[in-house]
């Protein structure tokens, strides 16, 4: 795991047990069940004439079986997993959401600015004015690169609160 190099041994105490990995596999089983149910509904067809639902059903079945094996493996694993970083996770998710909400409504430049600022929230080494300045630089750079130089069909600025798309 690339992150390991920089993590110190004191982190180990905070790292969750590897057996939590089983939770991921359980989720996969649930997802596979959804595809299997959907596949049945769409129709499996006959043996040498697979129907619309055959592929989702059979891949779902194989996935469920494999995931069940990994549940067993993970529960037996005595190791430690990576320590989750929910703050960064939330900030990046929010940054993407901000871009999705603002790109059509406000235009590319404000969207780039807001996305940068939101994404940089978890970094405490940068003050708020610093974050705003970074946002301004990124927004200006995006405008020059994508709109001026590459001529992509984005609107730099818009004001359309109901959203274009």
């Amino acid at each position: 795991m690339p992150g390991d190099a920089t993590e110190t041994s004191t982190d180990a105490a905070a790292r969750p047990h590897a057996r939590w990995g089983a939770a991921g596999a359980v989720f996969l089983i649930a997802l596979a069940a959804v595809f299997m149910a959907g596949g049945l509904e769409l129709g499996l067809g006959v043996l040498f004439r697979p129907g619309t639902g055959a592929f989702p059903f059979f891949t779902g079945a194989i996935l469920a079986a494999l995931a069940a094996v990994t549940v067993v493996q993970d529960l037996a694993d005595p190791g430690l997993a990576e320590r989750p970083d929910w703050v960064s996770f939330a900030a990046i998710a929010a940054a993407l959401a901000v871009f999705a909400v603002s790109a059509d409504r406000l235009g590319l430049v404000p969207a780039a600015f807001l996305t940068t600022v939101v994404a940089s929230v978890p970094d405490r080494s940068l003050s708020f004015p610093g974050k705003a300045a970074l946002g301004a630089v990124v927004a200006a750079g995006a405008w020059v690169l994508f709109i001026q130089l590459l001529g992509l069909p984005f609107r730099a600025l818009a004001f359309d609160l109901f959203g274009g798309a």
Partner: protein
Amino acid sequence: MTPILSRRAVMGAGLAALVLAPGLALAEPGAWTSEPVRIVVTFPPGGTSDLVARLLAKHLDADFGQKAVVDNRPGAAGTVAADYVARQPADGTVLMIANNAPFTIAPTQFESLPYDPMGDFAHVAYIGASAPGLFVKPDSGIATVAEFQAAAKEGSISYGSSGVGSISHILGKAVDGALGVETLHVPYQGSAPAIQDFRAGVLDTFYDMVAQNRPMIEDKEAVAIAIAAETRFPGVPDVPTFKEQGFDIVIENWVGLTGPAGIPPETAAKIHETVAAVIALPEVQAQLTGLGVTPREMSSDDYAAFVETQIGVWKPLIVAAGVQGK
């Protein structure tokens, strides 16, 4: 079926620009807005619609000083793009290359559409059309629709289309219906892989635009036994129509320029005249023909009426193809 409108206005450099449909204010070709116009395309780059849009954008800028950019918004058979355009400001800054998929096929095929193909749009300028036809192998011994009918009644014949609900699929079903035969439909993602399988000997026949496949016809790799047009098509005059062989099957694969409803009449007139002037350029005529699109001049009113007629024309075909509600 397809109304033959203002045939007199067809082609001829400069001539098209002079022929003005009644009811339109006189407008000089030229820029209609200081902003760059976005021409929305319903497909990813590379298709006929996209190339027509790029041709148009280039000449609007180079010859009439109207900046224009092509904005590809593919998805859900063009309905994503149409829905988007319907909700844009009606000032001539956002237009789209309209075609069958979102305007005449989707209204019948899709369970629900977020837009009204007539009420939510201003159909400004018809550009041109290509026509699909039926291709068979040269060694199949089939040269006419009647022979195809006989062969299809005898044994199972397969045909490739560019996808479920595509023009070529619907034409295939229309032919089945008119001939009283049942052929095996094999859908592909676009016509290119279908043609590849046809050449590989996997498929017996395929339907696709005739003019685009002229080299295959010339190389005797495929025989186009009929074209689904009113009259024989320029560029491929040797291919007979279904009509002249006694089967009333006409399917027009058209492209036009359409915007959101409510574009002011004088702006619409200006757009119409400018686009007509671009299409009348000999260079553009040649390039459109290269793409297999036969340009035709049509007034805005006629174009809107045309789209409305086409929805009615396609409806029974889509129902017959069994792709409704999908």
